[in-house]
């Protein structure tokens, strides 16, 4: 899940209007950009959609890291298509955020100067080709857990963006699984890479859902507004339950000695990730935070002349047209 620990904003508005608004949400009527909405709803959504969009954009980097080294033409093409999709997801989401009154440039600046976050998962490195498979299998897999329910979210443009995105994400997950399966069934070295990728990505994937939010007031508000559809723990459990049999099928071992099926609960019991590590990554101390943000800043700064040039040309053309009329 790409939006972690999004704090919902308090709202102080006319109780009658708030009541009407909540009634619409309870009746599953979508909120559209021109409709009245509480300030807190707007601000929380901007933060959540923005964080999701930034995750798609920064998320290109760990996978793009392997495009030039992909081991076959077919795998190269699949990876290129995936990274292209992720950029497209970023674009839909920035467009959804724009309908709430924040421009793409503004929200981009907030990513670049650190005011806004992206998912902690993209601060981990991709070290072998198996990592590309693991990212599709686990990271896209975890993202889907959150995004499928968000297709029913209350904000119309966000919901519609999610519907488009989810189709592609499940495709990414299958392709990632296929890539790591090929390695799990391959040579001893390939199996070693596959197991190593699972060892490194397992707990960071569990962290993607964020810490337990059972008692969080913020989550309760977001859930009432239907911009958060499930608790973090529900989604994490669902992810573990889905992923364990997939790992077993591959003959790979999930790096958790406590992991076992609990007959009474009908779920797997599993170990919590190291939340101290999670908060370190969130604070900027993950293995790749500095490099990821530097790469995005460099792309943005190096591209300034291009954006300026294209804008200047578009203005000249418009002026030319007006003059000709």
């Amino acid at each position, binding site marked *: 899940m790409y939006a972690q620990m999004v704090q919902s904003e308090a709202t102080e508005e006319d109780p009658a209007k708030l009541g009407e608004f909540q009634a619409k949400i309870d009746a599953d009527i979508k909120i559209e950009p021109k409709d009245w909405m509480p300030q807190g709803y707007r601000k929380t959504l901007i933060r959540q959609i923005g964080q999701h969009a930034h995750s798609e954009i920064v998320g290109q980097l760990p996978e793009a890291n392997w*495009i030039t080294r992909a081991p076959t033409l077919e795998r190269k093409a699949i990876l290129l298509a995936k990274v292209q999709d992720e950029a497209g997801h970023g674009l839909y989401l920035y467009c959804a955020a724009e309908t709430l009154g924040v421009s793409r440039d503004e929200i981009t600046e907030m990513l670049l100067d650190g005011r806004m976050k992206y998912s902690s998962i993209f601060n981990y490195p991709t070290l072998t080709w198996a990592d590309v498979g693991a990212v599709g299998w686990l990271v896209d897999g975890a993202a889907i857990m959150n995004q499928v329910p968000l297709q029913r979210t209350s904000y119309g443009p966000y919901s519609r963006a999610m519907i488009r995105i989810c189709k592609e994400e499940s495709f990414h997950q299958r392709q990632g699984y296929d890539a790591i399966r090929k390695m799990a069934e*391959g040579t001893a070295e390939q199996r070693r890479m596959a197991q190593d990728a699972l060892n490194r990505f397992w707990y960071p994937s569990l962290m993607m859902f964020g810490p337990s939010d059972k008692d969080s007031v913020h989550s309760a508000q977001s859930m009432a507004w239907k911009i958060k559809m499930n608790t973090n723990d529900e989604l994490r459990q669902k992810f573990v339950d889905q992923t364990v049999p997939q790992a077993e099928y591959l003959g790979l071992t999930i790096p958790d000695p406590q992991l076992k099926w609990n007959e009474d609960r009908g779920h797997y019991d599993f170990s919590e990730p190291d939340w101290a590590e999670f908060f370190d990554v969130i604070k900027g101390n993950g293995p790749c935070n500095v490099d990821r943000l530097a790469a995005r800043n460099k792309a943005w700064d190096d591209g300034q002349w291009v954006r300026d040039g294209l804008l200047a040309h578009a203005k000249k053309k418009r002026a030319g047209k007006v003059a000709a009329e």
Partner: protein
Amino acid sequence: MTSDEAFKQFLLRMGDNTLILGHRVSEWCGHAPVLEEDIALANTALDLIGQTQMWLALAGEVDGGKSADDLAYLRDAWDFRNVLLVEVPNGDFGRTIMRQFLFDAWHSIMLGRLIKSSDDRVAAIAAKASKEVAYHLERSSDTVVGLGDGTDESHARMQAALDYLWPYVGEMFACDAVDEQMAAAAIAPDPADLRDEYDALVGKVLTEATLTIPDNRFAHKGGRDGRMHTEHLGHLLTQMQWLQRAYPGASW
């Protein structure tokens, strides 16, 4: 040279151009100046890699049952047959997009002729690729015009890119024994015959872009016959081929 050998050389020239350019373009993934360019560059690279799969599969077939991957991943630099233009490093975005335009213009004209090839397999690949390349050309032309006729800085950068790349254009129109055989068999045109159409097309776009074509027809050569590639190709291959070389025989 047997006709099979000449045919193979021709197919390698086509497939290596798209492979090496696709690799270069893919280096931009995640680092482009604006999100729309990230998407467009990835899409261009993806098309080029798809075309590579078709050209090299056919080359491998002619070459006694090699796969496209064998050819892409297990040849050394001297066996590559791409023009030097596509292997030069990306430089800034201006150089990348100018290189794309100079190549797209040649590529679209070439594929237009290959659609009428006497070899059905060549014609079929060209028919599929030419639709994609028409779009590449439209996009790179628009961007070259936008940046050439943009700000002073963008104009200066685009002119510098054109000055740097122009000496690499001529090789696309060179003609040797391979080309003579292909032309005689009506499989492919004599590249030299494409030059007038190319000059007209490129001249029109560059004029609109307010850019000046260098007054110099000197052409670096050595890529399409493998006689002398640039120093850059070897580095590109060390990256591209690394996994296949480090773990021989593994399947991915």
